[in-house]
């Protein structure tokens, strides 16, 4: 038994991934070096992708790897390097003790409350928890996206296009 759960492959995977995610998250908060931070960020995203796969959401997991661990992380690293090089004072000590402590307490209370609720609530659970989906989730998702959520899907497309155009316009250098 591991923390009250039977030791199965799944459980072990969960705990390993959870460890990776939380550790990477904490590193991300404490590290200074840009490259190290990028690494930690990748760790968080990859760990989350693993969790998705444990949960049977293979497709979402793959997407997570491709978009977050790949694209967004790289984007962030580039941005960090782009802005980092010009200003050295950026590495001054992060929020002093008081602010950090106060924020920590506040966050801790909220997270503690959520954890308490998570623990105290009796969640209705499906009888077939292990392998809930009879078909490939890709098929199911495709079905949902193109039948139930067609309009939303199209809206998201429009949103992405708009965001890209907007980003280009905002980031473009002003013509002198």
């Amino acid at each position, binding site marked *: 038994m591991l923390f009250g759960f039977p030791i199965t492959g799944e459980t072990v995977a969960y705990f390993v991934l959870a460890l990776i995610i939380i550790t990477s998250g904490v590193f991300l908060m404490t590290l200074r070096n840009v490259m190290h931070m990028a690494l930690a960020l990748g760790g968080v995203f990859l760990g989350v992708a693993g969790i998705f796969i444990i949960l049977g959401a293979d497709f979402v997991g793959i997407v997570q790897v491709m978009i977050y661990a790949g694209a967004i992380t790289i984007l962030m690293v580039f941005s960090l390097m782009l802005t980092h090089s010009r200003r050295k004072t950026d590495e001054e000590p992060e929020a002093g003790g008081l602010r950090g402590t106060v*924020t920590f307490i*506040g966050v801790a209370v909220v997270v503690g*409350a959520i954890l308490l609720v998570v623990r105290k609530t009796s969640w209705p659970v499906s009888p077939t928890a292990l392998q809930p989906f009879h078909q490939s989730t890709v098929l199911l998702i495709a079905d949902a996206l193109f039948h139930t959520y067609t309009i939303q899907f199209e809206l998201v497309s429009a949103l992405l296009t708009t965001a890209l155009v907007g980003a280009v316009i905002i980031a473009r250098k002003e013509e002198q």
Partner: protein
Amino acid sequence: MIGLTWLVPVLPLAAYIILLASGRRMGEAVAAGISVTAVFVSFLLSIGIVGDVAAHGPAAPTVYPWLQFGSGSAGTITVGYQVTSLNALMLLVVSLVSMLVFLFSRSYMRGDDRFSRFYQYLNLFVFSMLGLVVSPNLLQFYIFWELVGVCSYLLVGFWYFKPEAAAAAKKAFIVTRIGDVGLFIGIILLYLSRGTFDFNTLFGAASAPSGMMIHAAAPLAYAGAKFFSLWYIPFAGWHAGAFVTLVALLVFIGAIGKSAQFPLHVWLPDAMEGPTPVSALIHAATMVAAGVYLVARMFPLFEASATASETVAVIGGFTAILAASIGLTQRDIKRVIAYSTVSQLGYMMLAMGVGAYVSGMFHLVTHAFFKALLFLAAGSVIHALDTQDLFEMGGLRKYLPVTHATFLAGALALSGIPPFAGFWSKDDILTAAFTSGHYVLYAMGLIAAFFTAAYIFRVYFLTFSGVYKGDRHPHEGGPAMTIPLIALGVLATIGGFINTPFAPILGNFLQDQGPIGFNPPANWALMAVSALVGLGGIWLAYTLYRTEEGRAERFAQRAGGLYTLSFNKFYVDELYSLIIVLPVMKIAGIFQFLDRWIIDGIVRLAGEIGYTGGVGVKYSSTGQVQTYGLVTVFGLAVMVLIVIGIGGVI
């Protein structure tokens, strides 16, 4: 003729409208001609009406619905006209005096650049006064009652550019307004208890013994218990007598205001700022007599309450002596006559109060003649001399023979010297007071009669005898002025014979539907006494002003404080301004202060607090998103904890 009664007030109204429409374009002669003609026709009609009434008795009122606000007859207000012997008499007097004053004004107002406007107002007044007289119900009466008040306001303030005239007009309106409000309340209470405004139904059928059947305010006993007792005066607990007294006194307050009785007499002398014909018509002969007419019209109401009629009598008697004693010392010729009017109206009220209905009305008629005469004669004097100060006159007998003769007739009538008109009516009143057992009032009346004779002959001697002190060349104002004077002079001389104790023509005429009030029997001794008192007054004036230079001044000095009191009108005006006008103004000022600084101050303070608070809170917006986020997190934490605490989730 009675069917044409509506035409009597409508003719002056038509003249008013014509004059109003044509404005200043109309020439003086045309304006005066139209007006005089209209009133003259009214006068002829009135004669016919009096004849009709004498021959056939009064007619039932002719009414038209005017305003409907409820169901049944109680819910419909009507207007119309009614002719009784009392109305008919008043119609005759009003139209007669109006006609003469209209004629007189033609000369008096000649050259005034608002000549036509003056006749407009006069016509409006005559319309209102005649409308008042023919009113078949109290509400219509009140409407015209107010209208005559407004005409008086307009005419007193006719020379608006004189500050005194403007102030006097305002004072006249406001003081009479106080009385009007009393009448207003009285009318409403009468209506609520009787369900009607009609004079005829108001006092019940002729079968009612006292003529008065107000049933104890039963309608006023509405669902009282529902409301706070603090705001609810339970009329239901009053017995009928107390209620009748209350209503009668409220009605009498209206009469006090209009007829310038103490304590609301202060406006009438000031009203002399108006043109003299106005004083003659409105402030002597007609409008101020409306109060007496009101009491006469509501006579059954006063008869039903001994308290109310005693009050009327006492107020009347007191006013008579008070005003007469003030009249003794005034320097302004019009003011003396004005106080004389107040005093004579007091006599009429005294008569009404002691129950002598016919005597009161009789005096009203004779007084209308001789007082209009005195005013017009005074107007003639003022017209000739352009001053109102008695001590700048003198010796006018030579220059103004007609005025002198007619003034003398009027003065003798006022003094109560037989056989002039005033003697018969005033003696009637004094006899009534004596025989009904009001000995104190009789004595007051007698003293007032002595004063009356003294002050009017003081005016006579100062004006007409001796030598002229001014440097003008006084002359008579032409036929338009002298004809009315002569006509009134004749009436003042022989007018009393319409109701001598030996041939009570007027008494029979007024009481054609059965006796009203109390008719004093002829009493030779009392007649002799009043004649002697009148002569005594004349003798006093003669000795003071004709025998020896400066005797009057010495006499005044010996009287000392009394003279000062009388000369300053017993300081009533000053007293009122101290205890009423000043406090009202002060309270108004305090309220204004409260309004601006306390009530509105609180409002503005609330605004200021909001503004200041907003400015203060503004600085907490630092623009640091992370700080906002931190605060939000704590807010969220608190909310979550509260939810967990009250058990909403777990």
